[in-house]
């Protein structure tokens, strides 16, 4: 299986960091091999069509935005 890519889109505010922490926790809990990237470039965020940060993308597909979701929810989204 190729490495999974989990991206956090957000300017780096408190909420975005919280989402990143939750994502890291989810990945380590699942014990999977995943690359976690925090995208803080505003232009890149806009190009993805995201208007409310923090957002989360798995393998390039947006799965959540505008909210900090819990590690459990992220685990579910990753497994889908």
């Amino acid at each position, binding site marked *: 299986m190729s490495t999974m890519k989990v991206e956090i889109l*957000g*300017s*780096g*505010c*408190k*909420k*975005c960091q*919280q989402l990143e922490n939750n994502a890291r926790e989810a990945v380590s809990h699942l014990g999977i091999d995943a690359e976690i990237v925090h995208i803080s470039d*505003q*232009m890149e*965020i*806009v*190009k993805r*069509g*995201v*208007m*409310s*940060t*923090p957002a989360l993308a798995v393998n390039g597909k*947006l*799965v959540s*935005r*505008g*909210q*900090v*979701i*819990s590690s459990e*929810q992220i685990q579910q989204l990753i497994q889908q």
Partner: protein
Amino acid sequence: MPDLFYPFDWLASQIVSRLFGISLDSHLGASLHFFLYDVPKVLTLLITISFIVGILQTFLQPERVRYWIGDKRSFIGNILAGMVGIVTPFCSCSAVPLFIGFLSAGVPLGVTFSYLISAPMVNEVAVVLLWGLFGLKVTLIYISFGVGLAIAAGYAIGLLKLEKWVEPFVWELQKGNQGQIPAENDLEMMKMTWKQRFLRGQYQVTEIFKSVWPYVVGGIAIGAIIHGYVPADLIMQWAGAGNPLAVPIAVILGVPLYANIAGVLPITEALVNKGMPLGTVLSFTMAVTALSFPEMVILRKVLRSQLLAIFIALVTIGIIAIGYLFNFLLA
């Protein structure tokens, strides 16, 4: 109307007078009662309201909102934008993607501003604190004046045709993105089951509660000390109706305090009890939420300083006017 919070009042009085045996009229008794009454009341409201708002917000993601108001004419659009701003989620760090997202979907500049003013100003934490500390009437007045200001300031920016002061790359991006941004499947993605919405509400409660409760408790503790010990004429002298500069000073003090509104409003409650006019408090609250310094810095990326200055000036004048108007009406 029966007082919803009577049980909290009763319990606090019982604890102070019966359990501790302290007179409610003494300095210490008054302070203790203030603290024991306000903390559970505000925290209860915070939990209830952030749960309801958390659920409401799952219906009003900004991505959806821009489609609703995208094709509305100016003014109608301003009104709608101001109203939906009440319940949509907003974090000042998403101001830039939101701003660009709205403009690229064809939302007029002035309408975008109405939303940018209303969304942060009428947020659930501010509403809860105003309701818990100053009552429902004050809260409704705050919401309607806040939305009114968002509509008026946004409409003015629309009339002034200030598009030239938006950084050019925003318009470039808009051209490049036309037809690309909508992405129907994105809206599909946002469909949620009721169970998900409830979970969202629940999560919202824990997040807000965790980040806000220390400020609430700390603020109420300071407020309690002021309530019990600081003489009223001192407050009257500083911030009373006799000081014509109290409103602008409150606005200037409010701008850098964005994150701490939960700690600062309980202090103002005690100040109001001592004679500080309510309009001054409303102005202050609006300044804290609508004119946060970090948001201005973030917006500078997409707005030329001229437009940013006009935006700040319009909102500041509006807030000060609301404060004076209020103090005048209630005097």
